[in-house]
């Protein structure tokens, strides 16, 4: 059964394919007959800044584009530091998280002016704060599927496999197929999506 409102955040770094991922998840929700609202910021943020999409599914009443702080039910993170940043601000004791553990370094870290927090500490903190947290090696899986950039679709696959949204895989398949008219691109994205399903199942069985 679907609750009245599901708040999902997809977060990462500009250029990682946040918007495409949120379009697919939203598309699957619409096919299920849910109301959908998305809050998106882009512009300057596409140049490697922090990015975040708020996706909200509701059964009856319309909702606004922003998830209130502390009210995210699900977080899909494309990068560990961004996942933690969002979890600290938007998470609560029941928030479920699935994330890509591959770090992407901010410029101040690249130049040696600040330190990227200890990765193990980030993982532990995410684990402690979230009700459930699952690590999916999305970049590696995307490479195997044909292109490391398709990590966003791997993460969508992982979300689909989690069944946290209670959307059938078929809904996701339809949403992906509709977004890509070029068969080559569609196949790559479907491969990455399927890799994410397997990746989640393996991670969850660990």
């Amino acid at each position, binding site marked *: 059964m679907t609750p009245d409102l599901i708040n999902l955040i997809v977060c990462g770094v500009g250029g990682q394919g946040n918007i495409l991922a949120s379009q697919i998840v939203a598309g699957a929700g619409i096919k299920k007959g849910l109301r959908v609202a998305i809050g998106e910021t882009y512009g300057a943020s596409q*140049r490697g800044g922090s990015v975040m999409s708020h996706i909200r599914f509701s059964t009856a009443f319309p909702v606004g584009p922003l998830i*209130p702080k502390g009210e995210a039910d699900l977080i899909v993170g494309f990068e560990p530091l961004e996942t933690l940043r969002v979890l600290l601000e938007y998470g609560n004791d029941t928030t479920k998280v699935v994330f890509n553990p591959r770090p992407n370094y901010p410029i101040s870290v690249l130049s040696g002016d*600040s330190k990227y927090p200890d990765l193990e500490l980030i993982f532990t903190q995410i684990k402690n704060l979230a009700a459930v947290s699952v690590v999916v090696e999305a970049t590696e899986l995307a490479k195997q599927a044909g292109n490391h950039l398709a990590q966003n679709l791997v993460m969508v696959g992982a979300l689909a496999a989690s069944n946290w949204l209670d959307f059938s895989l078929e809904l996701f398949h339809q949403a992906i197929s509709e977004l890509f008219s070029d068969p080559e691109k569609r196949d790559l994205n479907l491969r990455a999506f399927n890799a994410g399903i397997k990746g989640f199942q393996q991670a969850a069985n660990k």
Partner: protein
Amino acid sequence: MRKLLSGNEAVARGAWEAGVEVATAYPGTPSTEIVQALAGYPEVNAQWSVNEKVALEVASGAGYAGARSLCAMKHVGLNVASDPLFTLSYTGIQGGLVVVTADDPNLYSSQNEQDNRHYARAAKLPMLEPSDSDEARRFSKTAFALSEKYDCPVLLRLTTRISHGESLTELEERKMGPVLKKFDRNPSKYVMLPGYARPRHPLVEERMNRLKEFAETFPENRIEMGDKKIGIVSSGVAYQYGREAFPDASFLKLGMVWPLPEKLVKKFAGQVEKLFVVEELDPFLEDNLRMMGLDPVGKEVFPLCGELSPELVKQGVSGKGSVREINFDQAIPQRPPILCPGCPHRGVFHILKKLKVFTCGDIGCYTLAAQPPLNALHTCLCMGAGIGQSFGMEKALGKDARVVAVIGDSTFYHSGITALADIVYNRGKGTVLILDNLTTAMTGRQGHPGSGLDIYGQPSPVVELEKLVLGLGVKRVTVVNPYDLPLLEKVIQEEMEADEPSVIIARSACVLIPQFKGVRKKPVRVDREKCDGCKICLQLMCPALTWEAKTEPGKKRKGYARIDPLQCTGCEICLQVCNEAAICREDQ
């Protein structure tokens, strides 16, 4: 049929349904996708204009001739277009004219946080403000009808959250407006000589009175009665936040934010115990409610700066916060946007920094060069400002002041041309660097007069930069390859020393456009033995370069640089900067 659309796409859809024929804009976040989407409808003649003022003049010309037209811009774009706007309020139009302004609370991609509702009052024009995508579509249609009925442009105000938020939207068929297309030879209406304009002003005031009456019964201004203890007057996205925070409260939801329906507001105020005004940025509604003699709670509990959110509304009304506070043991570094790997701007800023010049900057991706570790751009005011400001600095500090202006190609066409003419005319000697990456990069790679591509991606006539600059009377014009650092340094030095105005065009395609294919080379690599860990390459602010901290016995260095071959485009700027020849091509 319902579809998930962004607010921007929905405005475009509504305009199309209303029979819009001409659409113009200069790209600007968060408004860009409106006219981009309209270009996708075959019945619409869309264009990127050189700037917002010209965009509004083109759209209003179409309106004078009876076509329905739309002009879209970001909030600061309306400052540029305000000159035609204020007098269009006097002349009116034939075909409906909708002017869309997309404000940017919280400055996601802007230089200020201005609240453009003030323009509606100042220009004496009606303004509609939708609170989701379907309203954006419907209000866009309504705006055309109002424009023709009241013979004036209608402002449609969006904010970033409405423009870029997405929600399900109804779709309807296209239906043309009733106005016939023709020349309307009517000098007393369209020639704003003082003698003709003077009698137009009372007509404008009378129109606003009629619009006030209309606002009283406009169905999009509605009372939603709930619990009478809390009454909230709101509009736009703030209404959504209010609804979410207080689902049971009473609301006066305003679809039209200017002019205001005084009787309706007072009726609502009289029915509730405590009256709140929930609005982003300025106390625009609040001040007007006070002038009606009401005493609402507003900015004393809601922030004046930044955007609102459901929790800020909740906190303001109830005085309580509800968010858990958890801190992480280590500092979480911020992640600001940066120049892409291989960006042609990077080398220019490295040289300007090396020469220790003061750089008057402008608006575009290159503004990011102001951030550490580049720290190589020292002003950014508004579109085109850098050229005039560099001239002012020269006047203040003398002709030997080491100052240059840096401006992008699209920004130069937008509003740099006139400032350069000013320098030539007034005997300046300044040096202007035009960073020509062949596109309007920051907003998502739109065409401009020098790019050779129109809004449809089709080849277009080119307004050649060199000829344009020569035509303005600049005699010293040099085109350089921005990846050739020694040449860049030599040319910048020489031109700064020249005793007359000079322009340096640093030309190479943006890494995100197809023309970059011919520029991209194989990634370079770091020879770990040679790297002495001096970090000079890391000052270039390139995402492909990282620092690997590592102390080794017998080595002074505290680590070494690394290059991510997946990100490196082989621009070889770091290779030229390295003093130890530790960065080399793959085959070396």
